Each structure stands twice: as C-alpha cells, then as structure tokens.
C-alpha cells in the first residue's frame, strides 16, 4: 500500500508532470578526449601456457583476438586441441602429485601473496589490456577488475595455511586437478575468482579463458612465471567451445567449475552426468531490482544505473528487471531518463567513458534482436541521444517502460545495457514478480524501512541481495545463485569449501 507521503508525491509530480521544467544536458562544456596511454605490452602472438611454459599448440592453429572498440586485430591466440588440453591436464596432475598437494599451506600461501603483489605492480598495464581485449571502460578495468582480481589472490592467500577452519568438525583436502571455464565479461577477475580458491586449497588448475578475451589470462601467465609458481600448477588453454568441452570432460578433472550462460551450463551438466565429477556452476540471471516509495530515490536511481549499465550490462547479476513501486514510477522513470543523458558511450580507453564497447559482434546482434522484440511486443523504448563510434560494436543505454512479465525482455537474459521497467503495488506483488523466474542469482531492494529490507532479503530467492546498493563484490563475500543461476559459491569461507573434499 502506498504511504500517504507517496500519494502526495504522486499528486505533485502529476501536477507538474506534463510539460514541466527540463534540465539541459548539452554541449556547453564538452570533455576533451582523455585516452589512457599506458602501454598494455601486448605480444603479436600468444601461445598456450602449459607446465610453466608458453608452448605452441600441437595443431599449429591460431585465431585472432580483436578489439571490439574498433574491430582491429590485437593478437593471434593459440587454438588448443584435445591433445593440448590433455598435455595441460597431465602437467597439472604431475604438479599436483609431486609438488602442490605436498607443499605446506604456509608455502602455498606465499605464492598467492606474490601473485597478488605482482598483479598490483602491473595493474595499469593489465587494465589497458583488459579494456582493449574486452571493450569495457578503462575506469572499470582500472578501478574494479584489476584491483579486485589482486584482492582475491590476497584474500585467498591467507586461507592456504588455515584450512582447518574451513569446515568446523571436519578436515578438508584438495580434490586434485580442477578444470575451469570462464566467460568474457570479467576475464581477469573471473580467472582470479576461479584460481585463487582452487590453489589456496591445494588443487591444480587447467583453465580456459573465453575465446574473445584470452589476452589477460596469458599476460597473467607471465606473472605466474615471475612468481616462480611451480610448473603445471596453473595451465591455460585457449580456444572456443570445443576446447572448453575438452577441458570440462577430461578424465583427470576431479572437479569442473564453469561460469557462463545457463544454456551452456546445462550442456556441461548433461555431458558430465554419471562421471562423478564435482561441479560448481555460476550461470545466468535476470535480477529484479526493487524500489519502494520510501527509498532514497536519488541513490536508488544511481543504483539502478550501476546495476544495469556497469560493464555494458554484461553482468550475470545485472539488475535488468527494475520493479518500481507505482507511486514513484513516474518520478523514477523521469530521473532515469535524465541520468542516461549524462552517460558517456564510446571509446573504452577514454577515461571518461561510462559505457564502452559490446564484447562481440554476436553479442551485439543478440542485444539488437531482444530490443527489437521489446519494441514489437509493445514496450516503450527510451534511448538518450548519443553519438556512437562508426567502427566497433556499440549499443546505447536503453530503457523499456510499460513492460509486463510476459514480455521476452522481462524474462530472457539480454546481457547488454538494456533495462526493463515493471511496476508493482504491494510488497507481496514485488516478491512474486521478483521470484517469478527460473533464475535466482541476485536481487536489489531499495527502502528506508529496516524491517522491510530484512523481509525482502528473506523472501527473495537469490544468492546475493543488495539492499540500498547494487553490484558490490568482495573476496570475502560469497557469490552464487539459486535455481537455474547455478550452484556452489565463490568467495568467502563458503566458496572455499567448494574446492575441497571433507575428510
């Protein structure tokens, strides 16, 4: 039920709603280009990283990695075949048996600390490489991806010699060699999420980065060499789906960890049925971000923007379904439109860019397809005027209002800068709509009332609930989904247990 307060508010905005005063977000003070100029130190060609060395793929094949911001080729990347994946697993198994599983936790810990420090040393270089390879704004790779990746190594380093505290009442032991496949939206950070806990627990790793974003993983391999990590403890094999299938299906993999789409997650689960391998699945989402009429509206608007436009919306936990309390729906839509006018879309390397390039041509096509469906199905589209670069893959920040639960844009994961706005009237209706999905990764709730926050947090079927904030991450904070968003957690003591067996 709307409060009297919001009823008055609604009346007020209705009164002034029609042809009210407008703000001008024009060109009085345009920002000059501010390109980040640090050298990403890219090699023209990247080999596989197996047993501590860069080796050419046995099949001799390479594929191009391009910069989605301008479609220029960045480097050639080795294409790993089944034989290469096998070599990686053998190296990992050897390292596991002879070195890593036998090493005292105290010593393993020091390697992880070293890695964290070396990554911090080269932070700017990695940020630039990440932005060029994946298209995300430099301010995000610089201020979020790279420092957070280092933080994950630092956090897990400290666990390596304290494993007796991971599972009270039971001992833990490593599983062996872990196969990991990660997505293209946070290439280095997902690598850190996967590798740091696996290594802290004493496992060895064969990891496949996403096809479009392999470069920072292979640069990270240089750090592993500098850290003198024993050969074979971490191995990188690059390639597309076929390589991924080989990594997931290898008989030496005691566990597989996958982050990616629910569709591919299911394929992996099917392919591993009956093999006895342990799994962690971090899959898709269609998170509800719920705003009540008593919320701090201006901060909620920021949170909504951060929730869906962070990393071009290429975020599995993106707040892609905005559920707004009807009394404030008009106010929030108006404020969002103004806020979108200020977002800067363009060259990801420009320090002032808020929304960079869409990761690939395929992803851009998918976004276009779903946005077209939204228009066809009758939702109201808003895009601020913005000039997109002629070359490269770009999509403007997009709002859809007048969306209902049966629209495709309300149920399918778009994985782009597109927000679907629905309304609700009561707390129960908000909960029902939020939970009316096969996904359950994350949710947001905005209200000034403490007891309602805790009620919502209890009722929302999601692994992460952001209350009066959105898209926050930390190595100490477990992350992972309910329902078809996957199982297992990454981060914190709880995430560590997914890389262990109880003894």
């Amino acid at each position, binding site marked *: 039920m709307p409060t009297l307060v919001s009823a008055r508010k609604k009346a007020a905005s209705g009164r002034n709603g029609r042809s009210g005063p407008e703000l001008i977000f024009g060109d009085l003070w345009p920002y*000059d280009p501010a390109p980040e100029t640090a050298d990403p130190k890219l090699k023209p060609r990247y080999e596989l990283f197996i047993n501590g060395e860069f080796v050419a793929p046995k099949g001799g094949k390479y594929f191009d990695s391009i910069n989605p911001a301008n479609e220029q080729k960045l480097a050639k990347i080795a294409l790993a075949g089944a034989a290469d994946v096998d070599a990686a697993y053998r190296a990992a198994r050897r390292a596991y048996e002879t070195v890593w599983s036998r090493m005292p936790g105290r010593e393993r810990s020091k390697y992880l600390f070293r890695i964290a420090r070396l990554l911090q040393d080269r932070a700017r270089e990695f940020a630039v490489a990440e932005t060029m390879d994946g298209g995300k704004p430099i301010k995000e790779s610089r201020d979020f991806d790279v420092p957070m990746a280092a933080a994950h190594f630092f956090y897990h380093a400290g666990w390596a010699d304290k494993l007796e505290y991971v599972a009270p009442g039971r001992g833990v032991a490593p599983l062996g060699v872990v196969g990991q496949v990660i997505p293209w939206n946070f290439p280095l950070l997902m690598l850190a999420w996967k590798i740091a806990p696996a290594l802290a627990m004493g496992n060895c790793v064969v990891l496949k980065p996403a096809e479009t974003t392999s470069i920072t993983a292979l640069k990270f391999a240089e750090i592993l060499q500098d850290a003198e990590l024993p050969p074979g403890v971490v191995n990188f094999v690059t390639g597309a789906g076929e390589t991924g299938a080989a990594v997931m299906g290898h008989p030496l993999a005691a566990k597989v960890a996958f982050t990616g789409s629910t569709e591919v997650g299911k394929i992996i689960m099917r392919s591993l049925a009956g093999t006895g391998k342990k799994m962690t699945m971090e899959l898709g989402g269609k998170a509800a971000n719920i705003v009540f009429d008593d919320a701090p509206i201006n901060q909620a608007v920021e949170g909504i923007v951060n929730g869906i436009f962070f990393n071009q919306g290429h975020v599995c936990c993106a707040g892609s379904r905005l559920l707004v309390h009807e009394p404030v729906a008009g106010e929030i839509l108006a404020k969002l439109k103004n806020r979108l006018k200020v977002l800067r879309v363009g060259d990801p390397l420009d320090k002032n860019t808020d929304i960079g390039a869409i990761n690939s041509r395929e992803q851009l096509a998918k976004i276009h397809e779903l946005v077209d469906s939204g228009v066809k199905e009758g939702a109201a589209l808003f895009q601020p005027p913005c000039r997109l670069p002629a070359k490269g893959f770009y999509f403007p920040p997009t709002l859809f209002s007048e969306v209902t639960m049966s629209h495709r844009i309300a149920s399918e994961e778009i994985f782009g800068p597109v927000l679907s706005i629905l309304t609700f009237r009561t707390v129960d209706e908000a909960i029902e709509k939020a939970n009316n999905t096969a996904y359950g990764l994350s949710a947001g709730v905005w209200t000034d009332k403490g007891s309602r926050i805790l009620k919502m947090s209890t009722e929302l079927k999601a692994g992460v609930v952001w209350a009066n904030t959105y898209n926050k991450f930390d190595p100490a904070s477990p992350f992972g989904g309910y329902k078809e968003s996957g199982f297992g957690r990454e981060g914190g003591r709880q995430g560590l247990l997914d890389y262990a067996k109880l003894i």
Partner: protein
Amino acid sequence: MVCDLMKAGQSASLRKLFDEIGPVDCVGIEERVAKYATRSIKKVAKVWGLKTAVSMLDLTTLEGKDTPGKVASLCRKALRPSDDPAVPSVAAVCVYPSMVRHAKKHVAGTSVKVASVATAFPSGQAPLKTRLAEVRAAVADGADEIDMVINRGAFLEGEFGEVQDEISAVVEACGAAALKVILEVSELETYDNIRAASFLAMEVIRAGDFIKTSTGKTSLNATLGNNQVMIEAIRDFYLDTGVAIGMKPAGGIRTAKQSLQFLIAIKETLGDAWLTNKRYRFGASSLLNDLLRQLEKEKTGAYQAPYYFSEATESY
C-alpha cells in the same frame, strides 16, 4: 500560547515535507561523488572549466583584521585577476557588513558584485531583530548579495517553522539583494538534515537566490558529498516547482582540481543551465590563485611557482 501551538503545527507539517522529500543514503552519495573525481578534464575543456570557476568565485575575506586597505586590494584582484584579458572577473567579493561600503567604491558599475555575510555571521546567535537590522544596513551600504546563516539550534530542536520564518524575514529585509542561505552543513551533521534544510530554505527564497554549504568557520566545509546532496535538492525542487535556485559551496575548496570536480557535479546533475555564476558560486579565497596558476600552466606548459601571483600567501 496560541502562537506556540501554531508554530508547533507548522513544524509538524514541515516534518511531513521531510517525509515527502525522502531520505538520503550517505554511502550512495559518497559513491556517486567518487565518480566525479575520476573524470579526466583536459585541454580546451580544462581551460573552459578553470575560467568558468574564476567567473563563479565569491572572492572572500572574512577576518577580524580586515581593513579598507585589504578590501581594496581584494577588489582589484576581483576585477582583474590576471594580466591575461581572457581571464574573467570573479563574480563577487564577499566581506563583512562593515566593509561593504569600502568594497562598493571599488566595484560599483562593474560586473563584480558585493556580497556580505550578515545575520550575526558565523554563529547567527543574535536576536532576530539585530540580525535583520544588520541585513538592512548591509543592503543600504550597497550590498548586492546577502549571505545569511540559518538558525541551526532551532533546526536541531525541530522548530522548523521558526527556521523558515527567519529566512522569510531575511528575504524581506534583502529587498532587491540576492540571498544566499548558509545551512552550515557541519553542524547539521547528516545528509538527511542537509537535504531537509535545503528544502526548508528553498520553499521561502526566490528564484535566483542561493543555498550555501557553510560559513568556512567550522571544521568541515564544502565537500563533494554535501554539494551533491544540495544540488540534488535543487534539481528535485526545480523539477517539482520550476523555481531555479542557485548553489554556493564555500570553505575548503582550495585547488583548481577540486573546483573542476564540483563543476563536473553540476554538469552531470543540474546540467548546462547551472554552469553560470548566476546559479553557481564558489566561496573561496586561496582558490583563485591556484586557478590562475593552472591557467598559466595550460598556456605555457610550465608549472608555476605560487609567488608569481598577486595576493599569494605562500612565500616559500
């Protein structure tokens, strides 16, 4: 007695206003403004920003030891901050009421206004009558703008009606002079209070009047955070009523870099219509020389020593 009851009723209805304007999440505000600091302003944009900041300055001297001579040199600096004719005059000089007539002599007929802090600045702890008399005297001496302080004691006591009535009385005493209402944010303490006080003031001042963060006489002055809370209040009030109120952060803004961050906040929150000294001011004294230093650096490419600029306090 009846009067007390009426006042209580007025305060209660204003309390409802606070419900209506909603709460502020302080962590959310801090995160928003942290993003302004990551904006990179270069070349033409930087020069435009620096010059615009100069044009928005309320060049201030508020010391017990102020003399007509000190005010005179301040006025000369205000009118012509630099030998470079491309550098504009500042918006105003800001002085104590006793110095208004001295300042007026130097800037009359120019674009530079005389602003005066009245109402028993900085504490405001004088009888209302005295405060209003001070305002009238300053206006009579030629002040174009009055910077008043709100009654923080009354605000914190919940006597919102009293706070608002006093502002209304000062508006009346101002006559044609523009009014800047100082909230003294450090004493209000929370962002919720700052937002509430902003609305209290905006309801009774006129289009073209300002709300202002602080006196500069307490430990915490203008920050990007409280600036953001206030400009969001101005935006929300404008969108609701169509009345455009100006904003003046004061105290603590000493570097050109800081001032650019405040301007970025304006550009991205209130938009182009507030990027003018008619709607945005900086209350500062040492900021001007840093702006001039940075402008010179942009022109020559060489970093500048402070003592190349007049009125510099750094002599080393």
